[in-house]
């Protein structure tokens, strides 16, 4: 009974596990599943539609038109010195990626309850796959953005892509990490009230982010409340994003570093908490 060979167990299932054991090796083993899930999301998205992946363009395109009309022309909010559609599209593209990640990851337990309830695999795979498949979508929308830049550059508008473009992969990573880190929101499954709060909260948060106005405008006009916008991690990401591609935007290296630190913390806390509750969460969905 007590021979050493006997005690050589591969897995031990206990009520609580080490919260900092992120099971990275397990996740790595399931990397093929990640790829297949991304593919599944993508394929099932355009199945039985006529326009197919064209839908990826339609939403940002029309949103840009509406914003240009309402915020740009009707409300007359200044957009630095950029062409209005380009200014809005930059904000919308980046914001959409973040908000898609957030809403998808927040409902990860409810939408996958059937799957999670029947078979084990590292749960982190699913939110990861959501972040990646949103990345595909983001990539497609980015093409639209590039087309617009090209269009305005030819027209001779005030657009200056610059060396800060190199920050782009880093910004992308930050957004993905933030979206994933907000997996905390997935813990809302037990109390559904919080899922309403998220759907609603994300709309409000957009107005605290520099999607429809530049940071410089807030600084000038609402200097008392500017911290609300400035401390929002998405603000410095979008500002840096705009600056890199278009040559207008307000961001400093310290602010970007502070944002990075904040996001890293959110990601860490999010993943650790997720890891802690994933094991019994199916019981309360």
């Amino acid at each position: 009974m007590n021979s050493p060979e006997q005690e050589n167990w591969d897995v031990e299932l206990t009520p609580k596990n080490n919260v900092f054991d992120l099971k990275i090796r397990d996740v790595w083993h399931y990397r093929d599943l990640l790829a297949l899930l991304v593919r599944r999301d993508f394929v099932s998205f355009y199945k039985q539609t006529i326009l197919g992946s064209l839908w990826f363009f339609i939403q940002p395109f029309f949103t840009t038109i509406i914003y240009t009309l309402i915020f740009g022309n009707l409300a007359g909010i200044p957009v630095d010195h950029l062409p209005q559609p380009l200014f809005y599209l930059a904000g919308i593209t980046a914001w959409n990626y973040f908000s898609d990640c957030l809403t998808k990851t927040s409902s990860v337990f409810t939408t996958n309850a059937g799957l999670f309830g029947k078979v084990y695999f590292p749960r982190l795979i699913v939110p990861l796959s959501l972040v990646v498949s949103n990345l595909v979508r983001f990539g497609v929308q980015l093409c639209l953005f590039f087309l617009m830049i090209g269009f305005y550059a030819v027209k001779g508008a005030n657009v200056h892509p610059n060396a800060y473009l190199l920050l782009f992969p880093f910004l992308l990573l930050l957004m993905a990490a933030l979206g994933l880190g907000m997996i905390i929101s997935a813990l809302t499954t037990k109390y559904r009230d919080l899922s309403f709060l998220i759907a609603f909260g994300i709309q409000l948060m957009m107005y605290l982010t520099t999607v429809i106005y530049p940071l410089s405008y807030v600084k000038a006009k609402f200097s008392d409340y500017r911290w609300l916008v400035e401390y929002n991690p998405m603000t410095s990401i979008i500002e840096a994003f705009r600056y890199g591609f278009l040559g207008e935007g307000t961001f400093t290296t310290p602010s970007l570093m502070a944002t990075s630190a904040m996001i890293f913390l959110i990601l860490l806390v999010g993943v650790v908490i997720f890891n802690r509750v994933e094991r019994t969460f199916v019981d309360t969905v």
Partner: protein
Amino acid sequence: MGAVIKAENLSKAYQLGEIGTGTISRDLERFWARVTGKEDPFLKIGEVNDRAVKGKGDIVWSLKDLNFEIERGDAVGIIGSNGAGKSTLLKILSRVTAPTTGSVKLKGRIASLLEVGTGFHPELSGKENIYLNGAILGMRKAEIKRKFDEIVDFSGVERYIDTPVKRYSSGMYVRLAFAVAAHLESEIMIVDEVLAVGDAEFQKKCLGKMGDVAENDGRTVLFVSHNMAAIQKICRNVIFMNKGMIGAMGDMALILPKYLQSTSAQKASFAIPLPDNYERILCYANKLQIEDTDGNSIQEIPTGKAWQIRVFFKINTRAAHFIIALGINNMVDVNIRTSWSKPKDMAEGNYEAIFKEDNLIFAPGTYSLILGLSNHERAIQYVENVASFTISDISEATLDDTIIKRNNVGLILNPMQIDIFPGTDNAH
């Protein structure tokens, strides 16, 4: 061989009822208890898992203090009535949910088939779903590719492999799903009752496969089913779950009768409705019992086991030419046997009559009984459907071995005398 699964004091508590406003205060209470290092108040008030009895608290122990070990290469059946904790146990073993207290240690990879086609996406083709499902079960892409032909072959749905699975029949769905799981190279295979949808041929194939992996590959199989014949076919040992605890564990042949006794909806004893004027009529029967030939009451009778029916009756006033008779109907109410006692003159008093059947072998199924009491061929009490008994498809060890099949067969299984000998050619 050594154990591959070892459970120690394994328990799982579930919260009953809805999660609502009351829950948050209790969550805070639990949190506070944890912070201050006290015992979880939530778990103290747990009750034994009995779905039929209304409890006081809203916490129930779905599993309570389970201790067991399962050896490598063993095929273990898990049996028990609905809500006995079988599926909860499988869920913990397949790592879907964590135990509340206690622990389980495992060796090797686990393939669990708690449901067929978990993660199948209706829009994707059979082929794409094989890859997706295989990956969900923990296979690498290369591994699936290597086994792809084998999987398709086993499933027998080759023709539809490029069609979206939403166009599949439920049987084809199961076939494909089981085929994927069966080809996973795991040391432990966990199968919940999922095969019910497949046709007889496929069910047989799956059971064969499961028996095979246990016997030849040295893999361990855990199998939940209510189909005792299937359990009997592939499992040597069983764990009998009863109200969240292990009721009994060990050799199939020893445990099964206990299980049948405790879970059968069949009764062994039936009260016979009394006629209105029972005190004034000549005689009446008031109780009927199904028994084995030793006189122990029994709810389900294994095929081939001798049984008897005991009827309790009372003679109010002296009855001449008294006859007690019993009829047996099958499930579609075809009368297959009628038996009369020899006419007799009976004095007043309480009597018992035993109808013993040690001759005919009834096929598995449920049979209903008709009871009649008469004197001078005049019926005094006649009750249709007075009781019923079940012949189960578990077979008695002494069953004649020429009886090779117990389903879709005739009602009476007694072998005829069959002689085979050389003959002359008379085909012209």
